[in-house]
């Protein structure tokens, strides 16, 4: 058993019994902390969704205004050496695998650029011969030539590797721990380098030390007790805020439902619980951008936009080569919100929210 860092264990806050009075107190907390979060995540807080939403909306508006920042994912490769029990791209799944050639990457980027996006998130599976560091660095370089913001959601790396990507123009890393519960983590990750819990846990820290500016954290909701995972996730954010004070952190709330391979999540999270989690995070981390992807359906996303969530993807293809070039048909997961960009932006505007494509400038990347 690996030695876990001291900041991780959220057990003490799970053992307290939360009453309605505790929830009311948490809603009025002047300096919200993890006991506030524990109260707002508790079953007792499920009766307070409306006041939680109101508080979350006020805080979101205060810190981010009436705007929603947009980004788009680009799947580079479906090759994977990992054995994640829940993933459609795991190495034991029978799926048509592809990695985009560089000219195909260019085609994808042209299609994405034409839509107007300025923040691109590059995705691969676990490290493979088809999509290794050199491949990724070249892809980053191609994106950085044409887009202001380039983030990666790939395999964990060493600090020097992250530094080489930062030098190629990479600005951010998204890396979900999947679950912060070590035993569940071990069961879900059946083989491959991803079995190393601590190596993954420390990866965002290494990325920031290596010169990336933004780090996106999250846990895959459904794998373990969501209250445990969300408290640990909060601790991870607070830990990084203290150790990397200049880092721009974001938090995502990916919810696992039905992936390819027929995986059934042992701790399913319903929409009400997901909303409760997002409101609770907004209240406890008022100035951290909260992200919601197209894993969620249109009605839920429309409702959450501006109420807690301030950053979203849209027009996403989770297949390799989905935007312009020919590629695979099977995606990592099914997109639940398959609206086009224009339709989505029209929805935002109708809710008096401005879609923001560019919220950073490549001029800050050259140092």
């Amino acid at each position, binding site marked *: 058993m690996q030695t876990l860092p001291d900041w991780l264990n959220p057990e003490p806050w799970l053992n307290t019994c939360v009453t309605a009075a505790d929830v009311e107190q948490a809603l009025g907390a002047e300096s919200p902390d993890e006991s506030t979060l524990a109260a707002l995540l508790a079953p007792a807080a499920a009766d307070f969704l409306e006041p939680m939403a109101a508080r979350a909306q006020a805080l979101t*508006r*205060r*810190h*981010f*205004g*009436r*705007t929603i920042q947009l980004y788009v994912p680009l799947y580079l490769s479906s090759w994977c050496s990992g054995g994640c029990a829940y993933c459609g791209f795991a190495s034991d799944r029978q799926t048509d695998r592809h990695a985009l050639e560089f000219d195909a990457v260019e085609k994808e980027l042209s299609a994405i*650029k034409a839509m*107007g996006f*300025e923040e691109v998130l590059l995705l691969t599976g676990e490290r493979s011969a088809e999509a290794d560091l050199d491949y990724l660095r070249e892809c980053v370089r191609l994106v950085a030539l044409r887009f*202001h913001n380039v983030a990666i959601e790939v395999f964990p790396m060493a600090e020097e590797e992250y530094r080489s990507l930062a030098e190629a123009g990479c600005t951010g890393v998204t890396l979900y721990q999947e679950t912060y519960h070590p035993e569940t983590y071990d069961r879900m990750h059946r083989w491959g380098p991803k079995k190393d819990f601590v190596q993954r846990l420390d990866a965002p820290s290494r990325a920031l030390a290596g010169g990336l*500016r933004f780090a996106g954290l999250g846990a895959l909701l459904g794998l373990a007790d969501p209250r445990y995972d969300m408290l640990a996730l909060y601790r991870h954010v607070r830990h990084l*805020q203290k150790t990397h*004070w*200049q*880092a*721009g*952190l974001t938090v995502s709330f990916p919810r696992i439902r039905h992936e390819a391979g027929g995986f059934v999540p042992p701790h399913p999270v319903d929409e009400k619980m997901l909303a409760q989690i997002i409101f609770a995070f907004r209240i406890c981390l008022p*100035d*951290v951008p909260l992200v919601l992807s197209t894993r969620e359906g249109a009605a839920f996303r429309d409702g959450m936009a501006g109420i807690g969530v301030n950053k979203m993807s849209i027009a996403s293809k989770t297949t390799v080569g989905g935007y312009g070039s020919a590629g695979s048909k099977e995606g990592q997961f099914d997109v639940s919100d398959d609206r086009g960009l224009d339709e989505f932006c029209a929805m935002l*505007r109708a809710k*008096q*929210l*401005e*879609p*923001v*494509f*560019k*919220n*950073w*400038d490549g*001029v*800050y990347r*050259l*140092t």
Partner: protein
Amino acid sequence: MLKLGNVEFRSRLILGTGKFSDTETMLKAIEASGTELVTVALRRFNREKPGDDLCAPLAKLKNVRLMPNTSGAMNAKEAVRAAQLGRELSGSPFVKVEIHPNPHHLMPDAIETWLAAKELAADGFIVLPYIPADPVLAKKLEDVGCAAVMPLGAAIGSGGGLSMAEMIRLIIRDSNIPVIVDAGLRAPSEAARAMEMGCDAVLVNSAIAAAKDPVAMARAFALGVETGYAARQAGLMPKSDVAVATSPLTSFLKQDGSV
């Protein structure tokens, strides 16, 4: 008249342009505020996608000057480069130096701000630095050629009001350049209070953009600034805690002038 560099302004209200629900509302709020100077983040310049670009619609406004800001810069070097690019794209000599290396609380970095301001002032910019409410830093920025200093009233977007009032008072007392309260204001009454204290102008963004009716709130801030400035000019009556009808504490002093 408010004088920044060699430019004179009738309005003493400066507007930020982020956080609005749409460009049209932003433009209407600017018009309602009567402002003649707006700041816009370089990171929100987008020449490639007109609908996402804040610069072009602002550049079209008559009687309103643009002041690009360096929000997003983590240090002086990045801020200088952003300022130069902002000047090139907007044609404006104004720059709001804004360096907040922590992207969450957005507190300005005094050291990097001073370094950038010095370099940009020497390069001919009209430099307005966004700073912590620090009277010593304010003087040091004046010394390197800033056109004004912009201490924060409270944290950006916090609506904390003039929580730094005592420090701002010291800055105003000793400053030879305009003092502009930037960030933290929530209500027009706070803008009025800042002007009564002797501020030369205020810069407002969130309080207008996040109001229920941004356009009406922009007008309300214009009135608040005007009221506070007029009150300052009129001279506020001195404040005293005690009535002073008689002088019981000094009645023992010889009243006839003898020594």
